């Protein structure tokens, strides 16, 4: 068990900087998910913790010990790879035992450790099989088993579920969560799938273009996104954004199309260009929300998903599309004009220039 | 091209490369440079002194009617061996590719001659075409057809071509069959639905699709005819009668090892080297294209 400290870590390849200074302290036993689009640097950061990429600048410490110059094998970590990276010519047993064998652990101890991992992961009947004789989910479990037997201080997961089909992914997600809380090993988990992130994480680090946009619990990240990027990345369908300007009172925002929304609290100087955000699920029929600004949404497309109905439309006089997520019982047709209003306290205000959050 | 993930030992890669590089330097690159150097030297008859003569050896070689003759012999020889062995191999491969029973058995029976040494192939054919004791050679002579490959230029050349081509068919067959079998059945079925008959399907679908293989084999066969058939010629005719079967390779050997004409042999070597380099360059341009063909 150990803490992980990432201090001002940077990574450059030749002229290009791909990690632009990241700080994060991960508590003992914590499950931190690094979430972001492809190319945001999340895998690179993970690989630097693993010791598979050199650290250009800054420090990484595991359990209080700076590991910058340590080989992967000396960092007391275990890693689960996206394509499992099982040794194809070794049996399940040999795959799990290989690292321990190299460490020079006595045979009896290896055997006990492998059998124990196989028991936890229900791999007992497959120990003599080769990876190619296993299903995707079973291979995934072997990869986890290989990580478990090492009894590491830290688990590193590099998109471990993205090669599985949707059903298996849900199942393995639950299994990973169960395993991690059972073993209470500090874990770093890289994914681009926000559902994985929301369900697995104690905290999520949302990354974009080499910086950590926000680190917070899943609900914090959802409720108080720190930037337009986070706000747009978390939540499906994505948050609606409307460009606008602070009103003279410093509490209302006038957006394109002539509408004006009043915020719960004052936030910025009058006249400042801002971006107003509201999530599709927070737009409700106007008659349910008294005293709110009404949006007249002209419906262009209706997606009936069963539980919900997602409506794509446009406010008269503006160009950007607006999405609303209504109950599945809503009767909506293309061409309707729906009066909608944001739920109280669910408006998000961002600086138009920096994209940073300004107020609730 | 390079892997993304590597090991970063400093000394180890050099140790790993050492044996290969040592053998390459000592037995390949050094002798090749020697050949280039010797090709500009003229040695007196007693081997006592040598003299730098620029390109005199080359002029001597290229104006020697014997050498020019051997270029002609080599061209006929290479074209015949390549055409004969590739043509037969393609025929067999198309037949074996047809959906018939026992394909595997035929394949097995046609493949093994690959394992024969060219010189052994030569002896096998000699035993059949020997003018006195050979089953076919003797029969020909008895039937009034004069047959003696030791006296008749055309017959000698025909025999070395036959033996050389015979041995190479299996190699070509393996590649043609693999190429034909790698064509997806659906493509051929689509052509059948489009109304193409078997003959038309072969010429418009299969043949163009195996063109890369054919081209590759063309290069391999020319190389084979140039270099690997030395054994056939040395065993069967020793380049004779006269110079009727003296290919370029046989000439280099004769000039260097028998006549001890170092400068001339070296000049011939360098000319052949240039030829191989050209051939390899063509082959590798082609291999790169092949990547796109999948």
């Amino acid at each position, binding site marked *: 068990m150990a803490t992980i400290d990432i201090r001002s870590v940077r990574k450059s390849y030749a002229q290009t900087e791909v990690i632009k200074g990241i700080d994060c302290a991960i508590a003992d036993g914590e499950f931190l998910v690094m979430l972001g689009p492809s190319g945001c640097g999340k895998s690179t950061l993970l690989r630097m913790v693993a010791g598979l990429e050199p650290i250009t600048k800054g420090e990484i410490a595991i359990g209080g010990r700076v590991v910058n110059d340590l080989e992967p*094998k000396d960092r007391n970590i275990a890693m689960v790879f996206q394509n499992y990276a099982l040794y194809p010519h070794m049996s399940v047993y040999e795959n799990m035992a290989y*690292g321990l064998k*190299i*460490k020079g652990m006595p045979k009896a101890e290896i055997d006990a450790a492998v059998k124990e991992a196989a028991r936890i992961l229900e791999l007992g009947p497959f120990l003599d099989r080769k990876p190619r004789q296993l299903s995707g989910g079973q291979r995934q479990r072997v990869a986890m088993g290989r990580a478990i037997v090492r009894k590491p201080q830290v688990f590193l997961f590099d998109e471990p579920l993205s090669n599985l089909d949707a059903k298996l992914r849900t199942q393995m997600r639950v299994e990973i969560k169960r395993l991690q809380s059972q073993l209470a090993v500090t874990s770093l988990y890289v994914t681009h799938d926000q559902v994985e992130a929301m369900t697995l994480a104690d905290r999520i680090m949302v990354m974009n273009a080499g910086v950590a946009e926000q680190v917070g619990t899943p609900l914090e990240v959802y409720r108080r996104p720190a930037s337009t990027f986070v706000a747009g990345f978390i939540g499906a369908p994505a948050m609606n954004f409307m460009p606008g300007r602070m009103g003279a009172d410093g509490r209302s925002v006038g957006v394109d199309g002539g509408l004006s929304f009043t915020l719960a609290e004052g936030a910025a100087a009058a006249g400042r260009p801002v971006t107003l955000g509201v999530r599709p699920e927070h737009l409700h029929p106007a008659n349910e929300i008294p005293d709110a600004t009404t949006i007249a949404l002209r419906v262009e497309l209706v997606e009936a998903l069963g539980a919900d109905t997602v409506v794509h439309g446009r406010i008269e006089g503006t160009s950007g599309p607006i999405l609303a997520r209504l109950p599945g019982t809503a009767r909506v047709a293309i061409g309707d004009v729906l009066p909608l209003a944001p739920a109280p306290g669910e408006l998000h205000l961002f600086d138009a220039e920096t994209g940073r959050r300004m107020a609730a | 091209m*390079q892997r993304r993930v590597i090991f970063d030992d400093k000394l180890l*890669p050099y140790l790993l490369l050492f044996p290969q590089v040592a053998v390459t330097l000592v037995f390949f690159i050094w002798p090749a440079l020697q050949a280039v150097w010797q090709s500009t030297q003229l040695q007196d008859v007693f081997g006592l002194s040598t003299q730098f003569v620029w390109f005199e050896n080359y002029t001597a070689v290229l104006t020697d009617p014997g050498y020019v003759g051997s270029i002609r012999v080599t061209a006929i020889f290479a074209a015949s061996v390549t055409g004969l062995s590739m043509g037969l191999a393609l025929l067999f491969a198309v037949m074996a590719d047809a959906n018939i029973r026992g394909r595997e058995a035929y394949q097995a029976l046609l493949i093994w001659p690959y394992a024969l040494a060219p*010189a052994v192939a030569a*002896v096998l054919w000699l035993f059949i075409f020997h003018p006195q004791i050979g089953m076919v050679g003797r029969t020909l002579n008895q039937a009034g057809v004069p047959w003696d490959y030791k006296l008749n230029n055309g017959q000698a050349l025909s025999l070395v071509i036959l033996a050389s081509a015979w041995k190479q068919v299996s190699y070509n067959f393996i590649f043609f069959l693999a190429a034909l079998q790698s064509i997806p059945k659906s493509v051929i079925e689509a052509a059948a639905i489009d109304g193409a008959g078997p003959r038309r399907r072969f010429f418009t679908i299969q043949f163009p699709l195996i063109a890369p293989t054919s081209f590759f084999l063309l290069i391999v066969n020319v190389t084979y005819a140039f270099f690997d058939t030395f*054994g056939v010629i040395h065993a069967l005719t020793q380049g004779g009668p006269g110079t009727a079967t003296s290919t370029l390779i046989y000439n280099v050997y004769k000039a*260097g090892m028998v006549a001890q004409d170092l400068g001339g042999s070296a000049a011939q070597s360098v000319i052949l080297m240039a030829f191989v380099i050209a051939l390899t360059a063509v082959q590798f341009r082609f291999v790169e294209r092949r990547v796109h063909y999948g």
Partner: protein
Amino acid sequence: MIARRSWTDAIPHLVLILGVAVFAFPIYVALVGSTWDAGTIGRGRLPLVPGPDGWANYDQALFGDRGGRISYVPVSQMMWNSFVMAMVITVGKIVISLLSAYAVAFFRFPGRMVFFWMIFITLMLPVEVRIVPTFEVISDLGMVNTFAGLTVPLIASATATLLFRQFFLTIPDELVEAAKIDGAGPMRFFFDVVLPLSRTNIAALFVILFIYGWNQYLWPLLVTSTREMETIVIGITKMLGTSDAQTDWNLIMATTILALLPPVAVVIAMMRTFVKGLVDGDK
């Protein structure tokens, strides 16, 4: 499935049977020739069926001294020479190609591309085009009439190196990383992972190279001058001599059969591996 007509079905069989016959015929005749006495063959009256002298012919070829006409080396000795030559060339080529391909594929170091090209250009320098200077190197090193001279100059291999390198490039990066995390260094990774994964390639290459080694002609012709070092392929053509009616055709044919047996046996035993390796590798 494309509809077929029954009469066209017969054509492929016909052509292939004819082809197989043409291929098998010379071998069959040699086999028959090796079972009759020299006199029968010398009179040009070789029957089409095996004769009674097979046992005696093979026994004499393998172990005899040929009745004192010329002092021959027994074929068993030649076969041993050929076998040693083929095995050293095969194993040598595979080992040094594996090592150098591993260096080129798994390391980054100054001069990597120089070495790569140096190995690559050996493709363009077959022994046939540099006969005399190569022979001079061998004789300067005192390697004439030795197994070392017979084999070492042939064990550099650009083809095998390129083949292995290409295969090594397909080994997933994650496998290397998993090994690093498991604590395996480069040599451990080579022996525990790379080598076992290369098994199929090595097997296919073994067949191809064994045949290559066994069938060598020009090189043994140059570097061996004593009877004791003669390989079987060279031995046969030396036996031909003037190849007149008085030649010991029965013994030559027995020797020929013995010369083609080992490589043919290897091909037949490993047909599948060999075909796959040849087609995949020789591009």
